[in-house]
């Protein structure tokens, strides 16, 4: 039994780190504009599909992935320029509806470009499971966990140590004041959408070998990432990573120890309870409304 629990834990952590990576994308855009970008899952899907497409052109694996990330980043920037920026001054709700519209558009685009079939992607370094204390883990899982860790560290450094990162954070605290002290708020928005899309694409390329990818797979992945971000406290990078890991472990423990039929129900109940008790999420700071 102990060995099984260890396997559940490993499974939970690996699944959770994919949620975490997706949640990070939500957090970034939310930080700058307080918009929940519901097209985040589609960035994941686009990244994976593009990587599969490029590697299908006989490109080396890592070149294909980098190209896919660049392409998706570019799409993210275009999305900000032509959809979000145009709707300047619109209410938050309208902006969020725009992101939902964009997600439908991206899905349609992928459907036309790559068809309806589910596609597979090669594992980065083989498929032979690694045995570890009676549990098994795939090399791909190690890729996911380590790259998630790297992305989190780089982002943390970017936001706390660089002027540019600090400028983005400033926008999230007070848009008007940032403008007054000379921060180009528009540019910050463009950059955060670009980074979000890029991180999403990386997540997609990492997940695709394990979970495959199809034009409509982004929605569910996005939803899980959104839950993780809420759980950890929207707007908190470390929180969303922990939120992702917790969500993954809860899911796998529930299906392993209790019943897999209640897996999703249990995670949603935890999420709801948490929102009742701590609406700002596990690690989020409370929002204080100034009067």
């Amino acid at each position: 039994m102990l060995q099984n629990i260890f396997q559940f834990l490993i499974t939970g952590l690996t699944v959770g780190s994919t949620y975490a990576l997706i949640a990070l994308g939500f957090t970034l855009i939310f930080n700058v504009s307080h918009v929940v970008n519901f097209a985040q899952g589609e960035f994941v899907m686009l990244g994976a599909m593009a990587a599969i497409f490029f590697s299908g052109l006989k490109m080396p694996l890592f070149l294909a992935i980098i190209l896919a990330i660049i392409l998706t980043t570019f799409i993210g920037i275009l999305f900000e320029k032509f959809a979000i920026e145009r709707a300047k001054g619109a209410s938050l709700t309208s902006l969020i509806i725009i992101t939902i519209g964009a997600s439908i558009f991206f899905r349609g685009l992928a459907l036309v470009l790559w068809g309806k079939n589910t596609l597979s992607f090669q594992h980065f370094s083989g498929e032979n499971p690694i045995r570890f204390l009676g549990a098994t883990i795939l090399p791909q899982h190690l890729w996911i966990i380590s790259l998630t860790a790297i992305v989190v560290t780089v982002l943390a450094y970017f936001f706390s140590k660089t002027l540019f990162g600090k400028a983005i954070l400033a926008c999230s605290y007070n848009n008007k004041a940032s403008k007054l002290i000379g921060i180009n708020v528009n540019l910050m928005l463009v950059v955060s959408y670009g980074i979000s899309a890029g991180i999403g694409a990386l997540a997609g390329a990492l997940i695709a070998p394990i979970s495959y990818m199809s034009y409509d797979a982004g929605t569910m992945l996005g939803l899980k990432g959104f839950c993780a971000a809420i759980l950890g406290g929207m707007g908190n990078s470390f929180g969303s990573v922990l939120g992702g890991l917790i969500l993954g472990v809860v899911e796998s423990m529930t299906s392993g120890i209790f019943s897999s039929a209640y897996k999703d129900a249990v995670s949603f109940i935890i999420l709801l309870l948490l929102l009742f008790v701590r609406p700002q999420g596990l690690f989020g700071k409370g929002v204080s409304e100034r009067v």
Partner: protein
Amino acid sequence: MKKNFMLTLMALFVFFTMVLSVSSISAADKEIKIGTFLSITGPASFLGDPELKTLQMYIEEINKKGGVNGNKLALYHYDDGGKSQDATEAVKKLIKKDRVDVILGGTTSGTSIAVIDIVEQEQIPFISMAGSIQIVDPVKKWVFKTPHTDKMAVEKIFEDMKKRGFTKIALISGDGGFDKSGHAQCVALAPKYGITLVSDEFYGNSDTDMTAQLTKIRSADAQAILNFGFGKAPAIVTKNIRQLDIKLPLYQSHGVASKDFLKLAGDAANGIRLPAAPLIVAEQLKDSDLLKKPLLDYKTKYEAKHGEISTFGGHAYDALMIAVKAIEKTKSVDKAKIRDEIEQIKDFPGTAGMFNMSATDHMGLALSSFKMVEVVNGNWKIVE
């Protein structure tokens, strides 16, 4: 004078256009109208897509050969996106607006079941391309279907398990309609075959990892695993089993009987057994098998135009051919007569097997028409 001439000309013009339009109406009247509603978009689109292509391809071919009883076939088609609501709307349009003579379609069990009430009320022959046994059990006067039922799939699998001496089975299934219906059949039929389900696990069809459920199954003392699922999830289950180094024999349902599944699961698929329509193993049938020629015919024609066949397109072929056969025989488009003829179809070699319809069986397929296949070196092989 000149004015009069113009008037005459105009009168003539009006007269001729009227005559022409009248004659075009009567020509359209002679057309045999085939109505269809399929899931071209939405989650079941990969089923609906080959179905529509098949219908279009064969209707074109039949028309080139002069049609049925000298009348051309016309296809009226609506996309229901996999939604029951849209399916009922489409069928209402087909009946009231397009006035079709026969309705084919219903890609999914959900959309098919949703329209049963309307077709029964409007009394129009309807041939479904979906799996669920509920479509034809209990028998409804105007409703037929061409694919094997999920009940038959479970029976075929349990038969094979019994032959190999497996009595303790771990079941793992998804949360879609197909999976749930199959799961219910497994639970209901297991005692009949002396099989105990020692583990009964579930996953969400968009889940990315099933190792937790499979770890549980690993310690459940089962002799074989049965995965009833559809889409990419069974491929993930297959790979996860390999990852966890579980050596138990794995059975899948007919839901994965496509080349796509083999591509996704790769080497991990070797050794899997599943029941499938004979279409995917057409080449391996004995030459004496009456199904072999029509199956290979369909396969070559479809693949020449659209690439890789799937059993789903085959269901559309079967539905269309059964309808055409019935219309040919009645030599009319009288709906009641067409229905009676469909019920009389005997020894029709379709892609799903030999069809023998009757008043009590509106599917007409025997269990033997299902083939048990095993994946050997990334390809299907019939298990004798």
